């Protein structure tokens, strides 16, 4: 039963994931969603994009997933900041989410954050 606690991947959009963002931290557990722009079967590195923002994903643990450029994928994993300040997400889970309504997803994500912030404030006051 003694397994290390699995951290929840905080919901974040790719455009938000800038070096100045609170999410841009070594080891941060995140959940990201974007369209697959590139994938190398050799290195298992994928690049996902949302608007003009992109993120590299290390998918070496997700060998069963079939990567199709142009499809939308969602990954949960840990962020690693490389010496050149470029980030890569070491993915623990990944899934194809073709058909997701991304506008609704982004808007709902903001509502979930607001709700969570309100509840956290209430419980500390």
């Amino acid at each position, binding site marked *: 039963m003694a397994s290390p606690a*699995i951290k*929840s991947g905080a919901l974040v959009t790719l455009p938000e994931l800038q070096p100045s963002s609170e999410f841009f931290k070594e080891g941060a557990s995140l959940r990201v969603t974007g369209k697959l722009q590139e994938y190398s079967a050799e290195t298992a590195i994928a690049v996902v994009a949302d608007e003009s923002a992109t993120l590299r994903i290390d998918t070496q643990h997700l060998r069963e997933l079939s990567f199709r450029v142009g499809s939308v994928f969602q990954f949960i994993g840990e962020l690693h900041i490389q010496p050149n300040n470029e980030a890569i997400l070491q993915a623990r889970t990944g899934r194809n989410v073709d058909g997701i309504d991304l506008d609704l*997803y982004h808007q709902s994500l903001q509502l979930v954050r607001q709700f969570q912030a309100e509840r956290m404030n209430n419980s500390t006051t």
Partner: protein
Amino acid sequence: MEGSSLQNTHVKLLGFNLLSLKPSPMNSSTFYLNRHPVSRAEILGVITSRDQKPNKFIKFTVDDGTAAVTCILWLNQLNSPYFSSRQPATVRVLADLAKGMAADVQIGNVGRVRGRITSYRGELQVTVSDVVIERDPNAETLHWLDCLTLARRCYGG
């Protein structure tokens, strides 16, 4: 909805909300959501861990982006004294159902989990009654919105 009981309803909750429920001092199977006593919950999220003890239980984690919630699905129906007073045929059906659900619980799948809220070593978790794997990519977004609406309209106070 004022005054109606949520005690026997599977309340739809975001993970962080479930983990912050307050245990009742009087009754170990009751928890407080604001002022409402509740005992069952429905959560939905990505399965991010899976640890199976054959013929005993499967312990898995559901991550909905707000928290990772531990879920326990018992697989001991055929050898637990708890089930010995029930019809053997019924127990076999329950065991088969649990086995089928356990097979669906795979890392990366999105699961809708319903069950009893329980406390184990001070941490809240869900003792699973059923798991359904969601294939609609919008299921999680719609679940979030359900949770927010219900929190404001029904679970408030």
